[in-house]
């Protein structure tokens, strides 16, 4: 399809006007995506276009609640139909007053093309790239299976509302992943390396033969590892685990819609000191190339850098228009929809831990005995209970201030507040977390989130996983 979503501006505005006659506020979110997925494994190879999907959601204030309808398609009859359905919903409610918070009024355009867009690579070259990377895997001993995949998407997001906001942005994402499985005597262990960026072909340079060799080596080594130690102990999180901790364990508790539900263990602690003076955590939707970067959010507010913890003190939360109004502050540009069929919620963008002043060697020496958790796999939030759960693919035992044995996958658990209180050191080197994260709001609405961090020394319960 030629052109972009702005070609439909007058059609969308026409429907906003119709709906706006029945309510004090209405907004439209339109989205268009396309892309391609390429994968090569030891048995097959595949190139497939991702579906070109285009759709729109209308959200209106219904007096006491938000009401919404959405559809695939954007042609005038489709827009009229979805607007009709919303009007039927509104007819059931007596619309009184304005919605909570401040409606965006800005016009924002973020339409800069990538210098080397993935689209220009073409299917044949994309397949050749994946095939070449796969050859690196095929040459590794004991690797029974490997897959190299490359996914790129071009996305347009277009936001209009009855208060005059008119915002358009283009988000081109590229994701590359190498997954390897070592197989021996009926046992299988895996490891992966992945990158996810807003960007173009230049992002693929982060997948190197050395990294592929490393992930193959980790998978192979895991076949012969012992079970990890268990119980409460000193732990060092690697930068990926730290980033996952900041997002899953801490960040979800700063989403202020949980405050409105009285469902955040952090809410009563705003303004309180939670960790050492060197502890700083932020959410930043403006990180260049970040996997969770956007120019504006899905209520039309610009994204920003929002400090969550500064100097060890819990200083800020993430807000949409509703929570900002409830807590007497401003929206932070964190309202996100997974897509046009998904609900807008308060969500994180890129969450980061800023570096401290310890070298890795100093952290290990300080730990004396414990474990380094490496290669994050997952995490899950507990916004009310304040517990944490992080899974690592591997770890290294620390004995007498020395890094020793590799151990297999493990899970970390504990109280987030105790973990923060017990921080004894923060690494001095900042690592950009290129691993593409996928975040759900509870059990729904997955979307891309980025992160970054460094090594972090504290204590927690560790067990096998």
């Amino acid at each position, binding site marked *: 399809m030629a052109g972009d979503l702005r070609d439909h501006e007058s059609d969308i505005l026409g429907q906003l006007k119709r709906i706006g006659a029945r309510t004090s506020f209405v907004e439209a979110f339109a989205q268009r995506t396309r892309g391609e997925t390429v994968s090569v494994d030891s048995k097959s190879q595949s*190139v497939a276009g991702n*579906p070109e999907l285009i*759709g729109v959601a209308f959200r209106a204030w219904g007096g006491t609640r938000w*009401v919404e309808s959405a559809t695939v398609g954007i042609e005038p009859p489709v827009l009229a139909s979805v607007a009709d359905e919303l009007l039927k919903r509104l007819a059931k409610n007596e619309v009184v007053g304005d919605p909570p918070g401040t409606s965006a009024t800005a016009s924002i355009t973020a339409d800069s093309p990538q210098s080397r867009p993935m689209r220009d690579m073409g299917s044949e070259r994309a397949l050749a790239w994946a095939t070449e990377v796969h050859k690196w895997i095929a040459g590794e001993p004991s690797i029974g299976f490997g897959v190299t995949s490359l996914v790129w998407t071009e996305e347009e997001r277009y936001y209009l509302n009855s208060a005059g906001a008119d915002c358009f942005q283009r988000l081109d994402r590229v994701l590359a992943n190498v997954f390897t499985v070592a197989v021996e005597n009926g046992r299988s262990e895996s490891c992966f390396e992945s990158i996810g960026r807003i960007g173009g072909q230049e992002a693929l340079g982060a997948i190197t033969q050395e990294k592929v060799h490393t992930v193959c080596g980790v998978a192979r080594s895991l076949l012969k590892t012992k079970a990890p130690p268990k119980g409460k102990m000193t732990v060092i999180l690697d930068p990926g685990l730290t980033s996952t901790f900041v997002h899953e364990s801490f960040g979800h508790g700063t989403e202020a819609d949980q405050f409105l539900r009285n469902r955040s263990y952090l809410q009563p602690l705003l303004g309180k000191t939670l960790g050492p003076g060197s502890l700083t955590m932020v959410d930043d939707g403006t990180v260049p190339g970040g996997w969770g970067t956007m120019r504006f959010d899905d209520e039309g507010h610009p994204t920003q850098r929002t400090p969550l913890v500064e100097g060890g003190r819990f200083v800020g939360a993430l807000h949409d228009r509703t929570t900002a109004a409830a807590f007497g502050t401003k929206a932070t540009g964190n309202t996100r929809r997974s897509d046009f069929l998904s609900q807008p919620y308060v969500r994180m963008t890129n969450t980061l831990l800023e570096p401290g002043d310890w070298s890795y060697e100093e952290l290990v020496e300080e730990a004396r005995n414990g474990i380094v958790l490496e290669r994050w796999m997952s995490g899950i939030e507990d916004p*009310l209970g304040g517990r944490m759960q992080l899974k690592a693919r591997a770890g290294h035992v620390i004995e007498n201030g020395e890094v020793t044995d590799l151990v297999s996958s493990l899970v970390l658990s504990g109280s987030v507040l105790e973990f923060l209180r017990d921080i004894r050191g923060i690494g001095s080197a900042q690592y950009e977390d290129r691993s593409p994260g996928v975040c759900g709001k509870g*059990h729904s609405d997955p979307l891309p989130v980025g992160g970054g961090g460094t090594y972090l020394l504290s204590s927690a319960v560790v067990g096998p996983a």
Partner: protein
Amino acid sequence: MIRAPMLASAVADWVGSLDVPWDVYAERARRFEIQLNGNRVEFVRGPLRLEGYGVRILTAVDGQTGVGFQASADFTPQGTRAAVETARAAAKFNRFPARQPELPATNAGAPTSPKILDPELWSDPARALDEEAAALLGSIDAQLLPPPTFATIRATLIETSIANSRGLAAAYAHTVVDREVAVKSEGGPEGRPPGEFWLEHLGRRIRLENLDAQVRDWYRFAADARRAVAPTTGETTVVLPPEVLSGILPPVLGFQFSGSALLRGMAVPRDTMVGTDTMDVTDDGVLDWAVRSSPVDDEGSAQRVRRVVSQGRSEEPFTDVLHANAVGTAPSGNAVRVGRGFSDEYWRKFTRRPVPGASTIILAPGDGGSDAELIEQVEDGIWVQQFGWANPDPVSGTFGGEVRIGYRIRRGRLAEPVRGGTVGGAVITRDGRPSVLNGVQAAGSAATLYGTLRSPTLVVKSLTVSGEA
């Protein structure tokens, strides 16, 4: 019975002139949602409409099969033609080690029609959601409990149709309901944070069975979380109910018994001892009200019941047409198109190609009696009610997660609540190392469907527990 229209036929008319095997999978879906904040409705959504199709083209390339695929939501003649051309162009790049795979034919067998559509929901979805939300709040209020911190009910109404070059024309309508409810307990003991129980439930019907009893349990778990303590570290007998096992067994067994794993050298070999010698496991694609049940699988083969483990030994793999052909067996009716995960796993399926996968894993009940009788058999152990997430690893076959709420078992009785710490171990092993499957000490006499698993409660004799002490 509600018949789904053959949306796929509209596309098939344009694909049909091709001289290579093809299929079309089409989906027309509507979703409705209601979200509560306390006892207040804060958001009502729907209809959220989605229509689309995926075209797959199979061409012979160098003795293998080039699989071209393109999904689209454009049903115009130009849009359909573009999707077909893109799929055909992609096929020439693609290779899959199947020789002459045969798509299912019109007369592929008389499919069983499981119950997969809730007529109350289908007839008036917005009203059904309103009533279910009111029923939830009514039950809570009647039991003098505080309102939930939040609740979301999502209902998706789907018409699925499949057509192919061998004349297959299958269509069915179905409903999927997923809900999240979080309830909180405040008050004593002094200084302890609030306790929460956070339910996630996936099913096909709008009404939750035994709602009052379930509500009572959720609040009890939340209250118990306040006074719970971390478990002690060690190897311990662990009791796992079906709602916990559903987060552990299907992801691991679904992969390790798949044709995909078999083709790539990662599957459990046939006739391997993986369970206790009384353990029977089947996969059932036609179980009533199960979320992966349907008359045909996602490429049109009749769904059926097949044995996975018999008396502890592994049996046939799950296959779709392509993998069955590649590994030299017959398709088992296990082609699955998985949506994008989370609550979107059961719609948007037209955007995905079929791969081999399990339907509903069934563990046969044992003779251990009721849950109370199973507990009586445990001298010292832990009942896990909920993990944060069990983190199953399909490849290594291990799992491990934090206990969000559980109970210590002392001398055959449930004792103090447990929270924090981790429980983990192997789900399945092939060399006799301890696992959930070969460590079953007792299995309950009744099985319950939860998500993609129907299972009794299992007493597993030794899993690793990590705690504060």
